[in-house]
């Protein structure tokens, strides 16, 4: 296992640290993982008002542990979204020390600069990760202090008690993907990154507070149950081209009764199993549509519709507009002239 410890308080410095250890250089704010370590990239940008964002899409040959060691510098928060893109069983948990948090599963985690946190990437597992550093003062520009404090204190007390609190769901995944697919020559990339980072923060706060107020059931789930539900979710949204897995097969995966599965899934993800499936698949369709690379018919088939009329009707039900009415002619596919880090990875 390779272990990288750092005290950097922004991600641009961090990727320089990583590049040094990998024996490579930072180009266009991006580090390409050298072959002897694995494949993939990490990019980072420091934005105004103390925001810093890092996006990684990586696959390492051996276990990798990135240790954040608290320093006495400025105080800030770290919000991170982590998703493994392979369906391998998660590797055995590695203990990352007291107050250490393990990020190998599809979870969202908020920590502060004084907490020790470990970012563990198991060998041979492709991992997509978005990390955001922000300062409390920045959020106070558009939030009342007591509202923010209420959120922070509820969140941290639950985090210390329960461990995992928030899974990566369809909404987060969409924003993560948008960030990962950012073209290097996007004309307003700073705004683009900043707006998505803030949207991720907004979604995180609102989802958490909604759960806290309306369904405390989600917080009664055991760590282990959450892990199994995360597994269920990833099976559910893995592939839209065929019929979705049945409740009975999902409940076997989760090792829960169908009733418990349905109840707990809804508590954790906010929607019943198949509504969640449907919402995700429509978001996927929309994303494909906006990429402008496929015909509507192809997209319909890619998300599992054989009847184009049904597809159009479902799309309209979700977004209030027909697929043909999405303004795809004017989309930004022009910026695909330059390769994205994603494209480089594919080649």
């Amino acid at each position, binding site marked *: 296992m390779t272990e990288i410890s750092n005290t950097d308080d922004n991600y641009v410095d961090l990727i320089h640290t990583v590049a040094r250890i990998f024996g490579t250089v930072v180009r266009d704010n991006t580090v390409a993982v050298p072959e002897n370590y694995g494949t993939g990239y990490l990019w980072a940008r420091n*934005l*105004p008002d103390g925001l810093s964002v890092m996006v990684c899409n990586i696959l390492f040959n051996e276990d990798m542990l990135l240790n954040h060691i608290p320093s006495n510098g400025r105080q800030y928060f770290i919000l991170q979204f982590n998703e493994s893109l392979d369906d391998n069983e998660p590797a055995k948990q590695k203990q990352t020390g007291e107050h250490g948090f393990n990020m190998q599963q599809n979870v969202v985690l908020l920590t502060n600069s004084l907490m020790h946190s470990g970012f563990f990437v198991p060998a041979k597992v492709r991992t997509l990760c978005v990390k955001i550093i922000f300062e409390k003062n920045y*959020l106070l*520009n*558009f*939030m*009342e202090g007591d*509202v923010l404090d209420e959120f922070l204190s509820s969140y941290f007390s639950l985090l210390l008690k329960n461990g995992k609190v928030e899974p990566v769901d369809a909404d987060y995944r969409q924003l993560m993907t948008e960030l990962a697919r950012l073209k290097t020559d*996007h*004309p*307003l*990339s*700073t*705004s*683009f990154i*900043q*707006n998505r980072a*803030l*949207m991720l923060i*907004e979604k995180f*706060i*609102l989802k958490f*507070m909604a759960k806290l107020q309306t369904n405390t059931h989600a917080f009664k789930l055991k760590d282990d149950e959450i892990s199994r539900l995360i597994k269920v979710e990833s099976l559910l949204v893995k592939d839209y081209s065929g019929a979705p897995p049945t409740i009975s097969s999902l409940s076997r995966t989760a090792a829960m009764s169908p009733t418990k599965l349905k109840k707990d899934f809804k508590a954790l993800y906010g929607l019943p199993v198949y509504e969640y499936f449907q919402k995700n698949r429509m978001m996927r369709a929309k994303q494909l549509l906006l990429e402008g690379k496929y015909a509507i018919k192809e997209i319909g088939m890619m998300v599992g519709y054989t009847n184009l009329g049904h597809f159009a009707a479902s799309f309209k039900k979700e*977004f*209030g*507009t027909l697929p043909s*009415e*999405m*303004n795809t002619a*004017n989309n*930004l596919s*022009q*910026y695909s002239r330059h390769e994205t880090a994603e494209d480089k990875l594919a080649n």
Partner: protein
Amino acid sequence: MLNIEYNETSFEDLLKNFARQIKGRVTGNLIQLPADVGEGTVWQITLHNQIQLLLYDFTPKESLVLQRKKSNKDYYVLRFDDVAAVQENHESKSSVFFTHTRQSSFYMATPGIHICGVNFLFDKECLNAFFANDEAGANIQKYMDLKMTGPYNFEMMDAEYSRLLHELLNAGDEKKYEGLIVMNRAMLLMERFFTRFFKKITATPLSIKISSDEIARLRLVEHELIKDFTAEPPTIPILARLAAMSPSKLKQTFKEIYGLPVYQYYQKHRMNKAKAMLLSKNYSEHEVAEELGFANRSNFIKAFHKSFGQTPEPMSVAS
């Protein structure tokens, strides 16, 4: 018909002005329309980065004409309007429009038709800050004033704009987090508009080389051209001298930058002014024709019809 004129560059003042003219009352940052004017609300929010938002969501009872008078202050206005279609299959007037306060503009809301939207108001400094960290920002700003025309400053209200707009207008549903939601939706709308604006100005690169000095002189020409409509427009030789260019170079570069040949551009602005004057109800048709330098009424009617597909009368008759 209710005709409201304004030139405020503070939405707070503007809201007070509206309230006076429609005999309503500002409560906090919001006006509830009086029943005889319509049903709905108009409200105002200033973001921490000094960008001002005017939000509205109402159905007018009578025709409402909103006229922005020219102001000497340099502010930009970016507006998103979502207007219900008059009938099924009828094209709605929903649009996205970018303009500045040195230009007058008018907007007419139709009785019984629901309209909602947001106006962004910001000065150069705000915009500089918005663009400060992106290289494309400098480019956008260089061409912006010249591209406030034609296909550049106008966009269809598509599903994505509409979604963001409605999330912005409904942010109050989450009272505690309203500020955060408003900020994020507002910034996403601006980001999307300016990204596409940039794409449009770079997708149609200037086919001829024009230096920034020449651009500055063309701006003088444009100003001179539409300064005064009562007299004959300046001739091409006069404008060419002003621009220190040959007549053919002037014609070519003018069209490249402003999107229309010199006199078509002149005529378009002249007729737009006619329309705005008529809608203001402060001038008779005769006065408008005279103000805009038409020798006789029938020429005016003909020109008006050519531009707008209708004769001037319906606009000047009070409803």
